[in-house]
């Protein structure tokens, strides 16, 4: 009898509210997107020049059931068809996380569906599995507004952070430099655009840290940019914004790509993934493509823009593997702003 059992499809609902996007997705068998709804609050936060946590939390409450309903409608399934509900447990803004977590718990309780708490970065990494099946061991470069990390994975659901930022995330540095250049929030895309129009002619530092370290540091670079602008002002000279953007971007990319390249060699990985919102950066994409696309030993995967920025499809994709590995959360699941990705490793 047993050998004739039909493997049923696995359907995971993903919920993500860690920052300023209210997102719900439905993922089939870990890799197929049946629904992917994102309600962005960016227009609301623009007037403040950054995400205001209290306002983000308020918007999540306004949006959550609307987004849930849209996702179910788009996927054309009902609760009885869901295998599990995956939700971002952390890290992120605590008040924002709590909306997704409590909505997820309410649905799980109402319909008796298993619940899986997911680390936000595990989600970013698993966004890649919606594009291409993963090949282990792999290395993931995670770059976003809140994170700059190199994560090594020997197998599914097992995460090892081999390097991370010691101060600002790369995305934060982008936003700060954008502010110095009077560019609107969020600054990343504007710097990227300007950088392509300028020349990296201004000398800026690269923080390599101790020999062999895979950690990052961007606060020194940020200060150097500020000093460069001030010094120019004092001497009555005008800095060409395009050149400053190009020089800044070049400095960030040099460090990211060089450290990634070294880790790829040392860990002998088969695949390199780019994850997180800064993966949308054209400069970073093309630098990685130049380095790795011709290398037959390693597969480079960069997901499309819609899967790089915060979304719930990635949470569903990570949740799919974690659920398969036996991870489940109780109704006492909480939002945890300082969650460590290695919590997923125990099984």
């Amino acid at each position: 009898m047993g050998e004739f059992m039909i493997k049923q499809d696995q359907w995971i609902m993903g919920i993500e509210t860690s920052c300023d996007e209210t997102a719900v997705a439905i993922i089939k068998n870990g890799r197929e997107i049946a629904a992917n709804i994102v309600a962005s609050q960016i227009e609301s936060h623009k007037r403040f020049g950054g995400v205001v946590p209290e306002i983000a939390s308020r918007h999540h409450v306004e949006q959550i059931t609307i987004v849930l309903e849209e996702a179910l409608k788009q996927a054309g399934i009902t609760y009885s068809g869901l295998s599990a509900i995956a939700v971002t447990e952390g890290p992120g803004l605590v008040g924002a996380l709590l909306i997704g977590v409590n909505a997820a718990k309410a649905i799980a309780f109402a319909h008796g569906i298993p619940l899986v708490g997911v680390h936000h970065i595990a989600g970013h990494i698993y966004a890649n599995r919606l594009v291409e099946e993963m090949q282990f061991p792999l290395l993931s470069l995670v770059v976003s507004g809140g994170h700059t990390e190199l994560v090594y994975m020997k197998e599914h659901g097992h995460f090892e952070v081999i390097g991370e930022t010691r101060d600002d995330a790369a995305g934060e540095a982008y936003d700060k430099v954008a502010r110095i250049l009077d560019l609107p929030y969020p600054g990343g895309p504007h710097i990227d655009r300007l950088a392509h129009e300028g020349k990296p002619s201004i000398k800026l530092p690269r923080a390599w840290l101790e020999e062999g370290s895979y950690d990052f540091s961007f606060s020194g670079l940020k200060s150097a940019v500020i000093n460069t602008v001030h010094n120019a002002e004092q001497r009555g000279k005008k800095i060409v914004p395009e050149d400053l953007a190009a020089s800044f971007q070049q400095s960030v990319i040099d460090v990211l790509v060089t450290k990634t390249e070294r880790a790829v060699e040392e860990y002998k990985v088969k695949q390199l993934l780019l994850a997180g919102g800064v993966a949308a950066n054209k400069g970073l994409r093309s630098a990685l493509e130049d380095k790795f696309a011709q290398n037959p030993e390693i597969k480079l995967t960069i997901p499309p823009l819609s899967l790089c920025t915060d979304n719930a499809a990635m949470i569903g994709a990570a949740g799919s593997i974690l659920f398969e590995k036996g991870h489940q959360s109780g109704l006492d699941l909480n939002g945890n702003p300082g969650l460590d990705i290695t919590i997923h490793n125990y099984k």
Partner: protein
Amino acid sequence: MKVLSIDTSNYPLGVALLDEEKVIGEYITNVKKNHSIRVMPAIDMLMNDCDVKPADLDKIVVAKGPGSYTGVRIGVTIAKTLAWTLNKPLVGISSLEIFAASAGRYFNGVIAPLFDARRGQIYTGLYQYKEGSLVSLLKDQLLLSKDWAAKLSEQNEKVLFIGNDLPIHRAVLEETLKNQAIFAALTEHNPRPAELALLGRDREGEEIHSFVPNYIRLAEAEANWLEVKKEKKL
């Protein structure tokens, strides 16, 4: 008709089940602990003990604020998601009204529930039982407790004050109101979730998607932004 009520708007965590004319279960704690961790397990335990399945519920009633922003949001998120996912009506009740209902039913006078909002301020409102039902005399608001006392001294009736934060404001209130002020006993300072369920039982369900807490206050960043915008226009 089974009603589930949820109140997490302040330190007290309250969950109750009302079945027709009977309160079949009630759970209250008043400790400084994380609501997000504890509410769903409390609902789960109470419903299990009372043999009520989620699908058996006919209505969800929630305390919609004012109160702690995060606290109110936890209760409202759970209530609105439950109501939406189970396709049941949702009713929101003022967190202050629950206090009034909990301690003032047999009081001949007006009822002023309150909680502390820091820097001498309180969230409060004025309620009264008229022919057995609770009516709102002055809407829920945020003001200094000394201004509230002055406003109430114009009333010709005794005022019953309720709330766990009374010790912070009692002296200020007494100074102005003297023996016009009556203070509830300590066993009456926790809002009863069963009263919340009863208040919501006969009210009509609200639009679920657009249901949000009554924060009373704008988020600080928003208030500042509006202020700057106004100044620029002048």
